[in-house]
């Protein structure tokens, strides 16, 4: 009975990553804040049932209730047509975050697709990378504005006012922010496809599709995850810029950006500007911190030291 050394239970890679992530204070705080914001915008409306969009038809009541400072009835005050700002923040946040996530998903999908194709198939590499370079030298914000302006009406006619705007914004942001992802993925794939396990897979007769799906893609997950977090932050800012410039959603339909725009034109009550502005900044800051933490956690050179 000399062998008393304890054999540690095998640990998965994701467990290691989580342990490393937990040591990054900023990232943990960011995760908590994002969790709270998500709860606020998703669970919040179930309990807080004030009307966010429609104006009170009773004109006298509406006029008396305008631009009120925070009270117990309206914890964030009311706006210039007496709607409850907290309800609007919840709905607006839901829209802003949804735009962020979906636009990021579009960008990641396009970027990964192009990156994998360019990295894996040598013949496609040249043209696809030229395409990426071309997109990188396009004036993105002006083009996005032009895109929303020219195609927005057609999309609104096809899918209804708010859904159409949502689609055009999400597609626009997605199509103008996939380039970094494509570059990162291509670089990874170029290195991966020379490795032995890919050779082994090919020598037992695995087709290209299966090699990509089962052997290459799982190995590019970590850089893509980092790019995805930063992509969410970028998409949320871009949507709020579009709405702030009056080119996003209709003004009565709240997003954090359009609420800010609305309040900017009503500067007598600066408090109305603070709430959506703080919400955007807080979200983006937390998401950036999460990205920072992920970068540390997913880097095997830092992890485990």
């Amino acid at each position, binding site marked *: 009975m000399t062998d008393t050394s304890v054999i540690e239970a095998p640990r998965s890679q994701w467990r290691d990553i989580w342990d490393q992530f937990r040591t990054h204070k*900023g990232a943990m705080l960011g995760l908590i804040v994002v969790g709270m914001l998500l709860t606020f915008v998703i669970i919040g409306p179930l309990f807080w049932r004030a009307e966010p969009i429609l104006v009170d038809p009773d004109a006298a009541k509406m006029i008396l209730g305008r631009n009120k400072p925070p009270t117990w009835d309206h914890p964030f005050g009311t706006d210039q047509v007496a709607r409850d700002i907290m309800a609007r923040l919840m709905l607006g946040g839901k829209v802003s975050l949804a735009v962020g996530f979906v636009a990021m998903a579009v960008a990641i999908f396009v970027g990964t697709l192009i990156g994998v194709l360019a990295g894996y198939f040598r013949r496609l590499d040249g043209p696809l990378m030229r395409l990426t*370079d*071309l997109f990188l*030298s*396009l*004036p*993105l*914000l*002006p*083009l996005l*504005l*032009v*895109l929303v*302006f*020219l*195609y927005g*009406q*057609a999309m609104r006619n096809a899918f209804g006012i708010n859904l159409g705007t949502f689609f055009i914004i999400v597609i626009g942001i997605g199509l103008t922010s996939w380039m970094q992802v494509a570059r990162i993925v291509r670089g990874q794939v170029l290195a991966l496809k020379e490795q032995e396990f890919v050779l082994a897979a090919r020598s037992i007769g695995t087709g290209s599709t299966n090699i990509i799906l089962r052997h290459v893609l799982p190995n590019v997950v970590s850089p893509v995850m980092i790019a995805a977090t930063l992509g969410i*932050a970028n998409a949320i*800012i871009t949507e*709020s*810029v579009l709405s*702030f*410039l*009056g*080119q996003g959603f209709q003004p009565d339909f709240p997003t954090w950006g359009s609420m*800010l725009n609305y309040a*900017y034109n009503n*500067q007598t009550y*600066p408090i109305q*500007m603070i709430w959506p*502005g703080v919400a*955007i*900044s807080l979200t*983006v*800051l937390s998401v*950036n*911190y999460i990205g*920072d933490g992920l970068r540390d956690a997913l880097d095997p050179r830092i992890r485990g030291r």
Partner: protein
Amino acid sequence: MLTYILRRLLVAIPTLILISIVIFLLVDLAPGSPASEIPLTVPPEVRARILESLGVNEPIHVRYLLWAKQFFWTEPLHGIDAAFGTDWAGDSQRLISYQSRVPVFAYIWQRLPQTLTVIGSAYLLAVLIALPIGIYSAYRQYSWFDQVGTFVSMIGFSVPTFFTGLLMIMLFTTKLGLFPSIFDTNLRVTDWSSFLKMLHQMTLPVVVLALFNAAEISRYTRSSVLENLGLDYVRTARAKGLSERKVILKHVLRNSLIPVVTVIALGMPTIFAGAIVTEQVFKINGIGAALIGAIVANDLPVVVTIAFITAVLIVFFNLIADILYGILDPRIRYD
């Protein structure tokens, strides 16, 4: 070096052509015909000439060539005519803004100085703030200065410029009444007092734009200096007894600024996009405001021209960045 520059210039031309095709297709494929976009206030004979110069009934590649001719041939000729009093362009139709009915390039030319002064000084200020902060926080890595600097720069590029702008207006204009929130475009700098007035009204927008860009540049500087501090030549420099000051400012700084310079050059076009928002917030009558105004008023020629000019700027600064890199870094050979 010269052959390299020439080669890069030649590569820039197809890029520009491709970009112009993208922009043209984006506008051309949009629902609604160009004829319906021309407002009724435009006189019928001008309308007919605009339609003719657009080649409405021609196939798509002819339309593109006509469009490109307008941009790269007719408009420059008019520009030369205006500058030297020649008459090369004759009476060919110019690109007309639907909104103000003046030639688009004349309209943009009027708006350009405001944008350039604000953007230029903001970027200069950003670089001046960012470099010392980046260098010092790398030199004292993990000190309180570094921690604060990292946190502030994280906030700097997380908080969108329109919110910082609004906060500044609230604080300095509404509460303290120190700075104006609206930019007076008619102000001409003729003497000392009008110069001071210009400086006064430029403060808020410049600071807002500068803070945002300084955040990014200082992070690049920090990581670049950090990378160099660990290299052997720094140890050699210290071992031969150079003062810390010399080691950092002469040896490390020179090497670590190479990538930073490229980042600064590549950032020029993005600050142009940032200016769209800042101009809107501070009501500066520049290019960005012209773009938004044109979009709101359905003024397609102005919108397209501004988008294309920004694209040209991006290609130009990419070129500058590449050439600078080649000049600054002797390790890179191009032949």
